[in-house]
């Protein structure tokens, strides 16, 4: 089998507080993780549990205090290959406003390949392709500040796509968006994963987004506490609620009913799952 694109081994990381007298804050306490190429992984966890810290290790923005992070076999501590790593793993952040560098949409998308020294004609081709992939080609010449939040975020994703990465890490890309913008971003993410075979790591606070992934990783206080397919993760309602998380309403309904002794399957995630199962139950 092919080597996983992301390998994280016993990753430990602490933030040094600005106040020297305070002890460093341990944000990651031994995280291990392997992501095979082409997987769609969702990461859940409450505020401050270390999700962003983990994400920043995946393209060498932060380097491990101990343990190791290998991207396509390259150690992120290898300074000479840092740009290779960043090209393999692209990162999208929460606030679309703070990621866009240029005033015109296509200029911004061109930013990364320009940095990489790609020839102009090739940049042009990549920019067109990236904008098409996120469905923003209509806005090529628009000023970035005139776009809505969701559109800006899609431009930010296009800016990463223009590097032609094999893996894309999105750190709460929908947190600042409205439902419409959120749906569009999620559709874009699914296209990247299903049609282009890109590896996706999606950090989110929305359970319905995580429910669409191949695999869900749940973190609590700098450690991984669950790592499974969404159906199984979301059936562990009590545990999730104990660490301040939530489950989609259909899963919760099924869980509550099961607790009352009603026999329902464990893998209910969506409205349709739930309706089918309940209909089945009521037929009996």
């Amino acid at each position: 089998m092919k080597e996983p694109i992301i390998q994280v081994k016993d990753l430990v990381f602490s933030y040094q507080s600005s106040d020297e007298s305070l002890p460093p804050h341990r944000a990651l306490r031994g995280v291990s993780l392997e992501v095979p190429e082409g997987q769609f992984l969702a990461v859940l966890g409450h505020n401050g549990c270390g999700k962003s810290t983990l994400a920043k290790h995946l393209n060498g923005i932060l380097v491990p205090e101990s343990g190791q992070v290998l991207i396509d076999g390259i150690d992120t501590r290898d300074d000479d290959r840092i740009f290779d790593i960043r090209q393999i793993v692209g990162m999208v952040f929460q606030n679309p406003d703070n990621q866009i560098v240029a005033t015109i949409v296509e200029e911004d998308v061109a930013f990364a390949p320009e940095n990489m020294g790609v020839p102009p004609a090739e940049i042009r081709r990549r920019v067109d392709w990236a904008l098409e992939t996120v469905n923003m080609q209509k806005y090529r010449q628009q000023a970035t500040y005139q776009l809505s939040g969701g559109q800006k975020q899609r431009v930010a994703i296009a800016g990463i796509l223009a590097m032609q990465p094999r893996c894309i890490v999105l750190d709460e890309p929908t947190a600042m968006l409205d439902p419409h913008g959120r749906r569009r971003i999620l559709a874009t993410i699914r296209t990247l994963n299903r049609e282009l075979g890109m590896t996706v790591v999606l950090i989110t606070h929305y359970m319905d987004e995580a429910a669409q992934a191949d695999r869900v990783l749940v973190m609590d206080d700098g450690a991984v506490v669950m790592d499974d397919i969404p159906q199984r993760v979301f059936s562990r309602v009590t545990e999730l609620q104990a660490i301040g998380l939530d489950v989609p309403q259909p899963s919760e309904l099924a869980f509550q009913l099961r607790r009352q002794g009603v026999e329902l399957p464990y893998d209910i995630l969506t409205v349709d799952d739930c309706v089918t199962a309940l209909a089945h139950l009521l037929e009996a």
Partner: protein
Amino acid sequence: MIRDITIGQYFTGHSALHRMDPRTKLVLTIAYIVVLFLTDSLPGYLLAIGLLVLCYKLAHIGLKVILRSLKPVIPLVLFTGILNMFFISGDVLWHWWIFRITQQGLYFAAIMSVRIICLIAGTSLLTYTTSPIALTDGLERLLAPLAKLHFPVHELAMMMTITLRFIPTLVEETDKIMSAQKSRGADMETGGLIKRVKALVPILIPLFVSSFRRADELALAMECRCYRGGEGRTRMRQLHMGGVDLAATAVMALICAGIILCNYLPL
């Protein structure tokens, strides 16, 4: 309120002037200032004004627009004009109490006005026909040779781009913070100096803090996109000079020569 603020006074259009390369426009504008500086004869001034009229016609920009951009300098012109009337002695045309108008005084005032009008109308043509982005782009490329002298051209240009990019964002943010503090009863419209200065604190602090946060995040995002300064960087958009640029340069050269020649004509 100010979300769609347009910095500068760019008028979209497709005239020859709009299509010109920003570099040409910049250079020609500078040339025009220099020529103005050298002009010293009536036909010279007429030529300079003629050129302006021609350009404004080409760019389809009306008189009203020019007048509006001249507004801020009117007090200066008047003030200097009046002073000249006091100080310049010469053939008195009209005299009342301590005021007198001399021929020379009038002459100076006229020259001054023409120069100011030409200067402002000429340079503002640049902002009217060039978008801020194109202008920044042009500036960067014009300054590019300076990089050889270890002048950080790329960094400066990057900063200009980012500044341009964040002006609307920050204006919007200021607006939001001001609204929020007003909702909490902040009073920014009344009171003496000290009170007003104090009223700024609730706006400036969040603004500073959020600027720093944005700066941090932006730096991070740029690093993620392989930013490593100017070396080895390519550009997607290549500026190129076309026939318009050539023609404009030729016309400009002719007129400049004309103006300079006029200085030496015995008129």
